[in-house]
Structure formats: structure tokens, C-alpha cells
């Protein structure tokens, strides 16, 4: 079974600082994976590389079957071929309604001409309402998303990610600012989603990661320190050293 995303020997340097150092990583088409690591381990930079925001100095990044070289694509094209991303800080379009936010994320033709002629049909509206129900914003579709609470914005962004219908979801700290109930809901959602597609979750909260019950990759100083189940990696002396020792 070939991997959906294959990252091979990637390195990137910012002004002499090596943010990613010979990193290799791969994930299967229907797999849930958590990435943990201390601050500055390179988690966000890793996501930047996969989504095309940052160009690595060396290495290869391939996606899908047949494999596509992601390093040749622009951000928007990477998103179009099925990689969705949720940012650490919720970034929704605050001047627009929840409905419009979801409608823009909905998987559809992305060209300007298509957008000009676009009219939301029954199927699209149904899909948006379905997602809204899932993320608990069914009653808020007409509200400006800027008026939502922090947690609701998190949900909206997760909703936008679902609306994109990607093959690979990159989720950066989904649980931040959520209540306990909401966290459980998020975990359920991610686990369910990972049945049909690949999901990579970056998270600090160990409790949240434990609940995901999935393989964990530990990053440290830009490369993989350990990989395996959470109990396995937490028993790894190197990991303990990085997290606790000084």
C-alpha cells in the first residue's frame, strides 16, 4: 500500500537556523497521526512545507497516486489537489457570514469565471447545512463570523476544512480554547474523518492526543525523534529527555 504523503529528507534553513533537518515522514490514505514536539521542533514549518508556504532547501515531498511533486505546485494548487489545513490561530473571514465562509470552502471549481457564474444549488446548500449541523453552527449561518466566539471560530474553521473535502487534513491545535465537551466532539470528528482520509493533528495537549488513540510522531529540532503509539513514545528516554530534562 503506497503512502498518500511522502516526505523525504527535507531540510530548510532560515538565516542560518535549521528549522527542519533531514526530515522524513509518510502517512497512509486513511490514517490518523498526531505530531507532537516542544516549541521550535518544526511542527508548523513542516505544515508550511507540505502546503507550499515554505520552499525547502533540499528533499522531496510527494502526494497521492500517481505521486505528484508538491514542491512544484503553488499553495492554491496544493489545496486544490486535496490538502486542507486548519491554522493554529483560527483564521476565518470575519467580515463574511458563516454561510459564505463555508460556501467558499466547499469543493467546487475555483476559477474566477466559475465563481462569477456560481449559484448555490440545492446540493451545495444541503451540504453546507449538514456541515453546519456537525460543527454546531446551524443556527448561526447568517451571522458574520467575526461575531462568533473563539471556540465557534475554531469549529467554523474545522467546518471549512471538511467542506473542502480534502484527502489529507492538516490540523494545527484544534482543541485550543475548547470546552471539555467540545474536545470530545472534536476527537470523535477527527477519528471518524480518518476512516476515509488521512489526518495529521499537531497538538500540545497530551490528554487530547491520548484520546485520539493513534500513532504519534515526535519532532525535535526539525527531525523525527520517535514514532509509535503514545505509550511507546512516552517511554522513550530521548523523548523524556526532550520534554522534561534540560
Amino acid at each position, binding site marked *: 500500500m503506497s503512502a498518500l504523503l511522502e516526505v523525504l529528507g527535507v531540510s530548510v534553513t532560515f538565516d542560518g537556523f535549521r528549522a527542519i533537518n533531514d526530515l522524513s515522514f509518510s502517512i497512509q490514505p486513511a490514517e490518523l497521526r498526531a505530531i507532537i514536539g516542544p516549541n521550535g521542533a518544526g511542527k508548523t514549518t513542516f505544515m508550511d512545507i507540505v502546503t507550499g508556504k515554505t520552499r525547502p532547501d533540499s528533499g522531496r515531498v510527494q502526494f497521492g497516486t500517481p505521486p505528484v511533486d508538491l514542491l512544484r505546485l*503553488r499553495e*492554491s494548487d496544493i489545496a486544490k489537489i486535496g490538502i486542507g489545513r486548519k491554522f493554529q490561530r483560527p483564521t476565518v*473571514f470575519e467580515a*463574511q457570514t458563516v454561510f459564505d465562509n463555508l*460556501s*467558499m470552502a466547499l469543493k467546487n471549481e475555483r*476559477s*474566477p469565471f466559475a*465563481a462569477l457564474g*456560481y449559484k448555490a444549488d440545492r446540493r451545495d446548500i444541503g451540504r453546507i447545512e449538514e456541515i453546519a449541523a456537525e460543527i454546531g453552527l446551524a443556527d448561526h449561518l447568517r451571522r458574520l463570523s467575526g461575531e462568533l466566539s473563539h471556540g465557534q471560530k475554531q469549529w467554523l474553521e474545522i467546518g471549512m476544512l471538511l467542506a473542502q473535502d480534502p484527502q489529507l487534513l492538516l490540523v494545527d491545535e484544534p482543541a485550543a480554547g475548547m470546552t471539555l465537551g467540545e474536545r470530545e466532539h472534536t476527537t470523535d470528528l477527527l477519528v471518524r474523518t480518518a476512516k476515509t482520509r488521512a489526518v495529521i493533528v499537531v497538538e500540545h495537549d497530551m490528554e487530547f492526543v491520548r484520546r485520539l488513540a493513534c500513532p504519534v510522531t515526535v519532532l525535535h529540532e526539525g527531525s523525527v525523534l520517535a514514532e509509535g503509539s503514545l505509550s511507546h513514545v512516552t517511554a522513550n528516554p530521548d523523548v523524556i529527555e526532550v520534554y522534561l530534562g534540560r
Partner: protein
Amino acid sequence: MKNTFLARQPSVIVFILVLAVITLLATVFSEAYGSGLLPTNYVKILGKTLCLCLIAIAMDLVWGYCGILSLGHFAFFGLGGYMIGMWLMYARTEDIVIASMSKAALPPTPGEVRDAIGTQIFGVVGGSDVPVIWSFAHSLPIQLALVVIVPGLLALVFGWLAFRSRVTGVYLSILTQAMTLALSLYLFQNDSGLRGNNGLSGLQNIPGLTDIPQSVISIWFMWGSALALGIGYVFAGWIVSGKFGNVVKAIRDDEARIRFLGYSVEAYKLFIFTITAVIAAIAGAIYYPQAGIVNPAEIAPIASIYLAVWVAIGGRGRLYGAVIGAALVSLLSSWFTGGQAPDLPLGFYTIKWVDWWQVLLGLSFVLVTLFAPRGIAGMFDRLVRKDAA
């Protein structure tokens, strides 16, 4: 779900009504078709102001909605004027030349006519040949097409270069300003083929319609301007109210984020930049026959900055805001600088508005930016309803 365009842009209906009423009133009081209370001169000012409102809408689309502070849209406006001006000038000169040559002993050859036109038009810059770029000047349909094609193509090429290399923010503004400056400097040259700093003149005389008095023609142009503005407003309203508008606003608010949703920001920016350039060019093509003259000074970078000033004062991100700003500031400007405004005696110093209007405009612009970033329309919005588009 009520998601139709008029429901999302309620101002369109109000705007069309107001525009119709203004046009009707102007016609009723005009010298040509009505009581004559409104002098032809004022009809022309009204017509020109409507054109400025149209380019302000274009500016609002590109800046207010898409966040690209273009300091170059007046270049497209001027180019539109040049394109139509070429036909106006050539065709009229041709009429005059043929009329005067028909009195000669021998009927003129086409070559002689062309030479005479060349001397007539380009004598002022020391030329006598008709330049290549005037090849189609005899044909109204072709020049009308060029009104759209030339500025559109310039915007397309420039925009493609600029957006492709991800030039954004103030960099892009400066670059558009450089483009405008380059164009105006080019036109200032005598050998640019467009009469250097003399520009194209006598544009108010429409070939073939020389028997019709200006009072009538000015009304026609005023109607034309109103029609163009109306269509432009509806078009802009339609553009910004749909999904396209949502994406464009999203680009303005967070370019990187919309990119990660799979939208090609460059394509959208290029589309909106080019389409607004075309709108600006059309506005210019209607404006300059009413103004009578187009010259490189019109294209100077300062004009485009003023355009941004109008839209900012009116309130960007709202179509009617752009219209209000353009109408108000341009009319006030011509009132103050035209010497009609009464001087303001302070006892120790008399403020002459001809001298101090610019200062007032500059400072009020600073104040609007500081204290009313949404402009007049923003204040208006706050009074009328809470949420805005």
C-alpha cells in the same frame, strides 16, 4: 434561501432611482430640452462628474473590495480618453481637410488628404506624418474597441507581471504609480505620436454632428454618462454580491488563507484589476469628449492618488460610498479652485480658497483616514443599519 443579488445589494435600486431622478431633472431644466435654468456648462460638469463616479466605482472594486491600492487607474481612464480622442480628432480633421480641399482645382488624392491631416494634427509637435498608431483612427468601431483593448491589455500585462511575482501592499501601490508615471512621461514626449503635452484637443466637436449645438450634445453625453454609471453600478453590485465577491473580499482580508482554500489569488486579482481598468477606460472615453481635451497631465500619478482620496472619503468597500466621495470631492474641488467660493476673512489674514483648498483637502484626508476609516458611507451606515456588506 433569499440569496439573490438585489437582496444582497439593496443600494442598487435606490441608486438607479436617484440617478434617474437627477438625469431627468437635469434634462427638464436644460437649455436644450427644458426651461434653460441649468446652463450647458453645468450639464457638462454633471456629465463629467458621473464619469468620475464610474471610475470611482472601479477604484472601489479594486481597492475597497480586493484590497489592491492601485495608484494607476487614472492612467487607464486617460488611455480610454486618448483612444476615443484619436477618432474624434482624426475624423473631424478629415472632414475639415476634405472640405477645404474640395475647393481646389484638382480633387485631392488619398495621399494628399492624409498628408494634410498629418500636418494639421501633428504640425504642433513639428511632425507631418500620421504615426502608425493612428492606423485605425479613421474607424469609430475600431477605436471604440481599442478603448477597451488597449487599457485592458496594459492592465493584463502589468497585472500579470506584478501579481505573478507576489508584489503586494505598498510595493504594489508604488509599482502602479511607477507605471502611471512611465505612461505619462511617455505621452509627454513629442514623438510619442500623441501630440506630446498638447494632448488631443477639440474633442467636444463630434464629427458628423457639428451642426447640432453643444447644449444638445452635452445632454446626450450626460445621458450616456448616466447610463454607463448605472450599468457600471449594477455590474459592480452583481460582481461583489456573489461568490466571486466573497472570494475577492477574502483576498482583501487574508490573502494567504484564501490561497490555502485552493483559490488562485493571482487569477482573481488579475481579473479584477483588468476588469476595473476597462471600466475606468470606458469612463474616460465618455469623460473626455465632454471635457474637450485630454493631455498627459491628466494621467500624472497625482490624479490616481486623488481617485483613492475620493474613494477613501466616500467610504471604500461600499459602492455608493465611492460614488458619493467622487461626486462630493470633485465638485467641491472645482468649486473651491474655480474661485467661486467666498474668501474667508480672519481679520489678520484672509483665506483665499484657491490657495488653501488643497491644504484643507489634504488635512481632511488625514482626518478621514484617522477618525473615519470607513468614510462618509461608513458614518451613513452606522446611522441606517448595523451590519454592512
